[in-house]
C-alpha cells in the first residue's frame, strides 16, 4: 500500500492517512482481508511518528474499516461500513455543502452539479467492476 502525506498542510496527518485508506477501499484497491503494513513500517516509510500512524489505525478500527488481530497485524475489515445511516449522512454533509457552494460559485446549475456527482459515482463503480474482473481472472 502506498500512501502519501503532506505534513506541511493544515490537515492533521492522521486524517490524511485515514482518508487515503478509505479511498483505496472505496475504489476497490484494498479489499476485505488485505493486510496493511505494520504501524512501525508505515511510520518509517512516511517519516512520521509511530503515534500518528497508530492513531489513524485506531480511528479506522473504531469505525469498522480495519480490524487488528491478535499478534498485532491489521487487515481491511469484512464489512467496512457499519455505522447508523444518520451518522454516515452527518459525515458526508460537509462535502455535500462544499460541492453545493463551489458549484453555485462557478455558475453551474443544480442539474449540472448533480450530473458531475453521478459521473464520479459511475467512475468508481467502473473501477470496482474492473478490479473484480481482474481478481476473478487471477484466482
Amino acid at each position, binding site marked *: 500500500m502506498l500512501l502519501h502525506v503532506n505534513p506541511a498542510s*493544515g490537515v492533521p*496527518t492522521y486524517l490524511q492517512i485515514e482518508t487515503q485508506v478509505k479511498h483505496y477501499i472505496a475504489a476497490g484497491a484494498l479489499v476485505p482481508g488485505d493486510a496493511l503494513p505494520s504501524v512501525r513500517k508505515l*511510520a518509517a516509510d512516511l517519516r512520521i511518528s509511530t503515534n500518528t500512524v497508530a492513531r489513524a489505525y485506531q480511528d479506522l478500527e473504531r469505525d469498522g474499516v480495519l480490524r487488528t488481530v491478535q499478534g498485532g497485524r491489521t487487515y481491511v475489515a469484512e464489512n467496512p461500513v457499519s455505522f447508523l445511516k444518520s451518522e454516515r449522512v452527518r459525515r458526508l454533509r460537509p462535502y455535500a455543502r462544499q460541492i453545493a457552494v463551489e458549484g453555485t460559485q462557478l455558475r453551474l446549475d443544480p442539474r449540472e452539479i448533480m450530473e458531475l456527482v453521478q459521473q464520479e459515482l459511475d467512475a468508481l463503480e467502473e473501477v470496482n467492476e474492473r478490479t473484480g474482473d481482474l481478481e476473478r481472472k487471477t484466482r
Partner: protein
Amino acid sequence: MNELAIWSEKLVKVYPGVRAVDGLSLNVPRGVAYGFLGRNGAGKTSTIRMLLGLAKPTEGRGTVLGFSVGREQVAILERTAYVSESKALYGNLTPRELVRFTRGFYPKWSDQAVRKYSQLLEIPMDRPFAKLSQGNRTKVCLLLALSQGADLLVFDEPATGLDPVVVDVFLRILVEDVVGEGRTVFISSHQLSDVEQIADWVGLIDHGRLLLEARLDDIKSQFRWVTAAGTDLPQTNFPEALLVAAEGNFHKYLVKKDAEAFAAELSRQGATVAEVTPMSLREIFLALVRMEEQCTPGNVGEIAAAVSSSF
C-alpha cells in the same frame, strides 16, 4: 508526573541583563517525538541546559525521566543522550576513536548501533574530527547519541549542516528505532519543516515563555483562519477568537478552538463568512509569535499589520 519524560514548573533562567527563560512549564509525555520550536534566542538552549543539569535554574523545578533536575543529575545523564548546538568534540580524534572513548560511559551502549548508523549516515570513521565538514561533524554527534541506548534523546538543532538526504535518513532512524521502540525524542529547532514531519507533540516558545503545547494533530484540527465580511462585526465574547486583520468590512480572525461555532455566531450577527481554513504549523507559529511580540491590550490594528493579510 512519572509518566512524563520531561516535566518542568515555572523554570526561570536569568543571565545578567536577560531573562532567557521566563516561567516555563513543560509536559513532555514519554514515547513521543516532541518538537521544541522557537526563534533564535527564544530560550530553547537555556531550557535544555537547565533540564540536563548543565546550568542552574534561577527559579523553578523539574524532572527528567522522573529524576529531579539538579539533584539527580547523574541518573538523568546516564539515561539521556544529548547533542548540543555546538557539535564540538575532541578535534584530533577520529570518529572511531571517539566511539571507543565514549562507549565506556554508557552501560547500554550498542556497538551494533554504531555499525548500522555509521553506514546509514555514511560517516568517514578514520578522519580526525577537526578535518571533517560541518555536516560530517553533526553526523558523528548523532551517531554517538543514537548508540547510547538512551531512554530520552535530546537534540539541539540536529540538522545543522546536513543535506536533505541525510536528514531524511536521520528522521527514518528516529521514527523506526527510537520512537518505534517507545523511547522519547526531544528536538529543539527553529526549522519547522523537519520537525513538523515527525513530531507528534510540539511546544512553541518565545521570549522564554511557552506559547502553546499540544499534540500537533490536535492543534491542526482546532486552529482555523476565519474570514468574514460585515459591518460592525462583534468584538465577540469568544475568548478563543482573535481579530488579526481588518480592512474595510473585511475581517480575518485566528480561532484557536470551535471555529465552526464561531463562524455560525458571526453569521447569526449578519456577517458573510467567506471561509474557515486550516492553518499549517508555520502559519500558527508566525501568528502566535507575532501576536506575542506585538500584542498589548487595545492595539489590534498593529497585529493586523503584522499577521499577513491576504484579502
